[in-house]
């Protein structure tokens, strides 16, 4: 508690407060714009880590992360086009509410629900993360190896539509992570001395997120403009409050644990929150599909709580489970910070300042976003060419500033083309980026484990935690296959199919 108060006093210094404000404003703006997300923004801002103090940069990135979760809901509600994948469910009821003239109430319940869920989620994060770190810090290399493997398998096979595509993407990421001579021998360097130090994560992240997306947008530049629903200042009356508070709390209860699991992400908890609210709606059951406020309040709370939840594995174990968390991890590494349980011991001031600033960011989001909603909607009128010209400019600047080498800009173009191809062929981006970042660390733990056991492979399953984690991995991979073989039972549907079914049901 003392540590948190010290952190709070650090977070409230003018400099850190300024970075928090910049973070939430930027985060909300990119959340509102379809196609531009917090992961791309943090990637583009990675070069600022050369000049800004670690705590200020991390505060800004956390603000962007939280802000992005919020901003996506505005687009979902007013345009019926989710800005982020986590807001897909919000569009179901949110847009219906807006169409019946209740846009202000939908935006209000999303904003206040995000605040409530974000605050509760951050309290849980503060309570859980140090404890998890204490458990994890005693684990040996074999267990770490297993945990990282679990994270890789989980982000690859649990999320996304196709396991095969997920693993292709993961393989690409691991291959990029292999480049270099860190192990003593040259791997995939093509005898090029410029590749000897490996490929900088900034170049890969910026290329995949920013250049890939810019090329994709350029290929689909002209689209029929969407109809936006005009909105004033968000507000709710007493009835809306009465109908919203329980969904907020239930949404938080769904969001946080799912975010904290190694297979995090906000898609599953928002979906579960929606179907739960529909089931529990009682007298308002008939309103679902026509704009029920519960269907906005629950999922919006769930996605913000899951954002707080994903910070648990990130800070306590050093495992990223979302694209944004992966890029934030890259930022921490570029400061020479070792994310994981040691972080709480080695850098208590930094960690607690970051945690305290999350409360500040959350409050800022509520204060800033309630009056500014109409302004955010105006962002959608910016022509894409202007927007993406700016993004490409910062992308090239960022890639060049890593080593001040033209070669990095060449790599940027190359990986940008890869990013475009991945979007074209439906490969998910998350496994690649997590693979690039976790790959080298995975190898480090493997080397360490095998060195201690003098090359005996069985050391890898010598720790109980490792064995449990391998069982979980096996269940994750084989579970769906086994279920499909059980006669008389349909295999579990993919999340995307479920969401589609739900959408059809709601729209009919």
């Amino acid at each position, binding site marked *: 508690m003392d540590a948190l108060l010290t952190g709070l006093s650090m977070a409230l210094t003018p400099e850190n407060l300024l970075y928090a404000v910049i973070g939430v404003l930027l985060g909300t703006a990119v959340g509102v714009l379809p196609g531009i997300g917090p992961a791309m923004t943090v990637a583009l801002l990675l070069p600022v880590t050369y000049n800004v103090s670690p705590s200020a940069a991390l505060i800004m990135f956390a603000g962007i992360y939280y802000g992005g979760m919020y901003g996506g809901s505005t687009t979902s509600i007013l345009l019926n086009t989710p800005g982020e994948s986590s807001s897909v469910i919000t569009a179901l009821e949110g847009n219906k509410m807006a169409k019946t003239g209740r846009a202000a109430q939908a935006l209000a319940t999303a904003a206040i629900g995000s605040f409530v869920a974000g605050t509760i989620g951050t309290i849980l994060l503060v309570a859980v993360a140090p404890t998890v770190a204490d458990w994890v810090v005693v684990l040996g290399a074999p267990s770490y190896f297993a945990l990282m493997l679990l994270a890789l398998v989980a982000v690859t096979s649990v999320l996304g539509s196709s396991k095969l595509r997920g693993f292709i993407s993961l393989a690409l990421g691991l291959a990029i992570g292999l480049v270099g001579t860190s192990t003593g021998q040259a791997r995939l360097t093509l005898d090029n001395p410029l590749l000897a130090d490996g490929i900088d994560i900034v170049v890969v992240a910026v290329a995949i997120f920013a250049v890939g997306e810019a090329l994709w947008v350029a290929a689909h530049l002209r689209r029929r403009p*969407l109809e936006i629903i005009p909105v004033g200042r968000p507000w709710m009356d007493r009835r809306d409050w009465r109908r919203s508070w329980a969904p907020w709390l239930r949404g938080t209860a769904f969001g946080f644990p799912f975010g904290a699991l190694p297979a995090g992400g906000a898609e599953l908890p928002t979906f579960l929150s929606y179907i739960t609210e529909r089931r529990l709606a009682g007298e308002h059951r008939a309103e679902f599909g026509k704009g029920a406020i519960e269907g906005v309040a629950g999922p919006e709370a769930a996605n913000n709580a899951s954002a707080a939840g994903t910070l648990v594995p990130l800070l306590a174990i050093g495992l990223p489970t979302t694209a944004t968390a992966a890029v934030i991890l890259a930022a921490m590494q570029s400061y020479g910070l070792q994310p994981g349980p040691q972080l709480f011991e080695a850098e208590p001031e930094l960690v607690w300042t970051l945690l305290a600033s999350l409360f500040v960011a959350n409050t800022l989001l509520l204060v800033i976003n309630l009056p500014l909603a109409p302004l955010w909607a105006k962002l959608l009128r910016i022509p894409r060419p202007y927007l993406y010209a700016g993004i490409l400019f910062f992308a090239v600047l960022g890639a060049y500033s890593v080593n001040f080498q033209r070669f990095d800009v060449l790599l940027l173009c190359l990986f940008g083309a890869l990013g475009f191809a991945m979007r074209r062929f439906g490969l998910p981006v998350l496994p690649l980026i997590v693979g690039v970042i976790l790959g080298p660390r995975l190898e480090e733990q493997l080397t360490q484990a095998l060195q201690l056991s003098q090359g005996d492979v069985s050391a890898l399953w010598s720790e109980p935690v490792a064995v449990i984690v391998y069982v979980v991995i096996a269940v994750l991979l084989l579970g769906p296959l086994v279920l499909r073989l059980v006669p008389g039972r349909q295999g579990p549907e993919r999340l995307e199919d479920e969401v589609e079914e739900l959408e059809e049901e709601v729209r009919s």
Partner: protein
Amino acid sequence: MTVVVGWTPDARGHAALVRAIAEAQVHDERLLVVNASSGTAPVDDRFAGVADVSQVRALLDSLGVDGEVRQTVVRDVGDALLDIAEEVDASMLVIGIRHRSPVGKLLMGSTAQRILLDARCPVLAVKA
């Protein structure tokens, strides 16, 4: 013959539309209402929504004008209007104009000016 009008769901577009309807009635011609956008922004206020379009259709019907509303997403709004005017062999092209500052014109160009200079048929420019 056909009267073509470049229409946007705002005051300028309304002034042009009203005048174009009058022209079509006087000469007993068809009316083609064109609403175009470059489609580069997710939201374009000058691209009419469903409600606006049906309002215009209702207006045309109530006045007994033989007309249609065409919405397109094109590379360049001015060129699109000129192309459509040629395609239907328009007797007249009606556009709405507004005052532009020299700097604004320098930065954004002027669709109206290009239409006035490049059109092959008479152009009627209506001020809102």
